């Protein structure tokens, strides 16, 4: 078994490492996995092709979850005033209950402001519901939820058996919506088996939010420089830090998809003038649809890393092009950065030259490299859990991605320009002028171009490969999720959860960067990693002395 305390004997070549990872597999598995392990060539505009968003091999211990987790857990879970009702046996609802650390604040509405985040709602389907159908029970549960809470909105999520037995949840919810009149009820067919990972669930959630909520409220909200922040889930309070920065800059955030979000934010999203996309993977569908239907352009931003945050703010200011905003953004950056730099200069004395591995999500394995770079740490291997090719290679590959049977199962919403509400936010000339300055709309470069040559990029990393990677490459820190945490730490390597941040955060924005520097400094510098062996294990020779001399 691997022992991290053993000295590194050989300097491994990336090709050798890849071969080592594949060695133990049966031939069929090795062939398949080989296509998801890429030695990065870091060639500009020409990254090697990656296989991604394909089925996990049965029996290979994956990090991935299911479609339901992507839909209910990731996208809709962080909302605060929607009653999220899970239609299925109890487990699915139970496991997604408060475990992702999405923070909420109903503060503006006072102590009684609507906030259902701490509740877990389920129809708790029983055997008779599976045999005779669960529609009646679902209808009754929606009625009971309405009677108890009178929420603005009830969202229903299908779990595996619901699709199999053919419960028509969309008709049930449509009928209940009509019956109530003052409560929007809709459903998500996000059965766990629908896709190859959480990613299918993101898409399903995007579609239904767009179909049932976005555009429901045309009221013009006050404020200048109106944007939507897409793909930010307020884990560990990330969204609160970004909100703080926006407020300071004078940027109005109409809606966040979906950290600490409300029904009304979604309903008003079409009134914003720019979509800033954080997590490209989980929310790019909504960004595209908002552009097609309402004329709101989108840009990729990243608030992970202080330098990245400054860059993102400048990008937003440049879009609006008003000197007042540009100046205010510069002022905010100038105010925030000294504290960040002081923290960075302190930790970098201890973290410079150290190495990291990151295997999470569809964006974070990329975003967090910026933070590690700020600390002088290099990411030597990274990959996503549920990304598609464009997240590795850049959006330019989208037209070339072959749709397989699993992807075809996921509905592609056809959206057209809204007859009355479509409004170009910028004239064609204005867009061109920005693009001539190098401004990129609707663009994401992906992870691979940002990583060094000869780093190893792995899609859908599994237990066996992560153990091998750590054994061979001995990073100073490994980042993944809760399931991976302790097998890595048993090897004596600190492990940071970058899904739910362990108990930490926020890590976004300026204050978040400081938190992250301190957290990583703590982890890689902790004395505990030096206690792996007892004195008698380090020097097991029995000394030939007797007594006390």
């Amino acid at each position, binding site marked *: 078994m691997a022992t991290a305390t053993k000295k590194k004997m050989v300097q491994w070549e990336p090709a050798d490492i890849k071969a080592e990872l594949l060695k*133990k597999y049966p031939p069929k598995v090795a062939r398949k996995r080989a296509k998801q392990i890429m030695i990065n060539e870091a060639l500009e505009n020409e990254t090697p092709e990656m296989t991604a968003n394909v089925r996990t091999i049965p*029996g290979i211990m*994956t*990090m991935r979850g299911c479609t339901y987790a992507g839909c209910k857990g990731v996208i809709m879970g962080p909302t605060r005033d929607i009653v999220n009702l899970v239609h299925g046996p109890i487990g699915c609802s139970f496991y997604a209950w408060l475990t992702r650390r999405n923070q909420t604040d109903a503060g503006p509405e006072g102590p009684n402001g609507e906030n259902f985040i701490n509740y877990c709602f389920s129809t*708790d389907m*029983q055997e008779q519901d599976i045999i005779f159908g669960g529609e009646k029970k679902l209808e009754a549960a929606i009625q009971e939820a309405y009677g108890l809470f009178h929420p603005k909105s009830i969202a229903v999520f299908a779990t595996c058996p619901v699709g199999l037995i053919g419960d028509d949840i969309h008709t049930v919810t449509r009928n209940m919506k009509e019956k109530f009149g003052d409560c929007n009820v809709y459903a998500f067919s996000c059965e766990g088996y629908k896709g190859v990972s959480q990613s299918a669930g993101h898409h399903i959630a995007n579609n239904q939010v767009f179909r049932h909520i976005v555009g429901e409220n045309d009221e013009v909200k006050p404020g200048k420089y109106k944007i939507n922040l897409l793909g930010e889930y307020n884990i560990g309070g990330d969204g609160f830090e970004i909100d703080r920065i926006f407020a300071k800059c004078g940027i109005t955030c109409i809606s966040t998809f979906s950290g600490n979000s409300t029904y009304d934010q979604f309903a008003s999203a079409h009134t914003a003038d720019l979509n800033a996309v954080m997590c490209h993977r989980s929310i790019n569908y909504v960004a595209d649809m908002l552009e097609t239907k309402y004329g709101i352009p989108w840009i990729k931003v990243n608030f992970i890393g202080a330098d990245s945050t400054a860059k993102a703010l400048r990008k937003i200011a440049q879009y609006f092009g008003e000197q007042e905003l540009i100046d205010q953004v510069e002022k905010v950056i100038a105010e925030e950065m000294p504290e960040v730099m002081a923290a960075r200069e302190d930790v970098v004395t201890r973290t410079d030259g150290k190495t990291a591995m990151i295997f999470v999500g569809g964006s974070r394995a990329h975003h967090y490299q910026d933070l590690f770079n700020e600390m002088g740490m290099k990411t030597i291997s990274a990959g996503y859990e549920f990304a598609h090719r464009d997240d590795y290679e850049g959006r330019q590959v989208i037209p070339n991605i072959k749709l397989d049977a699993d992807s075809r199962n996921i509905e592609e919403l056809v959206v057209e320009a809204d007859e009355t509400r479509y409004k170009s936010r910028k004239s064609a000339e204005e867009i061109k002028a920005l693009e001539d300055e190098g401004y990129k709309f609707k663009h994401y470069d992906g992870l691979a171009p940002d990583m060094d040559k000869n780093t190893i990029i792995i899609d859908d990393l599994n237990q066996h490969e992560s153990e091998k990677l750590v054994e061979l490459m001995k990073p100073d820190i490994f980042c993944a999720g809760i*399931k991976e945490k302790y097998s890595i730490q048993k090897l004596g390597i600190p492990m940071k959860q970058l899904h739910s941040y362990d108990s930490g955060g926020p890590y976004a924005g300026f204050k978040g960067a400081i938190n992250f520097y301190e957290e990583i400094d703590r982890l890689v510098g902790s004395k505990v990693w030096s206690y792996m062996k007892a004195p008698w294990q380090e020097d097991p020779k029995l000394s030939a002395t007797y007594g006390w001399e």
Partner: protein
Amino acid sequence: MLLRHTPKEITERKALTINPAKTCQPIGAMYAALGIHGCLPHSHGSQGCCAYHRSTLTRHYKEPISATTSSFTEGASVFGGQSNMLQAINNIFSVYNPDVIAVHTTCLSETIGDDLPQIKKKAETEGKIPDGKYVISASTPSYSGSHVTGFSNMVTAMADMAEPTGTKNGKINVIPGWVEPADMEEIKRLTNIMGVKSVLFPDTSGVLNGPLSGEYKMFPEGGTTVAELKSTGDSIGTLALGEWCSAAAARLLDKKHKVPCSVLDMPFGLKATDRFIDALRTVAGVSVPEEISVERGQLVDMISDMHQYLYKKKVALAGDPDQLIAMTEFLVSIDMCPVHIVTGTPGKKFEKRIREITKDMGCEVNVMAKGDLFHLHQFIKNEPVDFLMCNTYGKYIARDEDIPLIRWGFPILDRQGHQYFPTVGYKGGLRLLEKILGVLMDRQDRDATEQKFELVL
């Protein structure tokens, strides 16, 4: 308020569960299977089930939880999961090489009607199960029972591994039920002191409370071995601790291999531990050593020393049936008043048992099987208590109602200790009492006026 939308007024709900006091069968099967040495639990369903169970168990134990999945996609859901399962068996033995794969079903594979024993037969015929390796399976449909049922079903599958040789081995099977690794260790310690040879299954001690030493072992030293499980048919008897968790396995051994069994309560608190020790004494024909009588006496001593702080204090309890029955009895036995007792697991027998235990307590008792924490919260709003004993989800109620919480049960996601310090047996009773007294007396110190603030309690 965290649960600001929970009204005091209780209205009947027929279809909506809010804040469940249970979860689904497969996670129980996964936990039980981790109590077999060298075993890799396998979830026959879509990936999310396995991911959720591993995450929940990992958060509870702060230990690696290894388990695999059949990774169903839409195709498998339509055409059946046999091909996925066969691939999985092949891959698991090639890559992870466990002694045993313990397969459990999910609502998905149950709804489409996958037949695990048949798939296993096919795997055998195709030579996918290497010599000396085992695949066991349990049917664990998420839409009936609860995590407790799933645990029981996998423990029954373990009992089904028994291969009697025809010669009795003088051992006693002890089925501990869904307790912590530390509890399993404590039960083994007690049987050892008694001089009783036993096979404990499942046994997660040494698996889910492992050391940090710079080495990672997917299959740690602990767990009941296959040889031990096979030998359970040669044992002279079985003690099943807990009707819900353990009785089915014990009855299977009785029915199939004529190994007589006796179903006891889980040994939480004085009286249930007394019955456990006495049963060990009787079935093994040994006398109880002084050491155990001393441990018992220490527990009785602490009860008498601190009785004034316990007397008539009201408690709300939520958890699983076997644990709640024993805990209710313990609290009643030390003159406390458990007034609200809720489990999410179904079972009329549960309510009946609790009513019997509390009948002379002298106050109204709300007892509920198939209940939820939303309902428990409403009970508490209507009849306040001095503290709540519950898993971590109870902390939302505790904070809103400003009452202390003792974390006990599954899952505990925000405190440590349950892996390492038992709550079963007399020593476990001392720990429970320490916890109870700790919250009550901290509250007394916090609430006392300056005049009434006491140095000595």
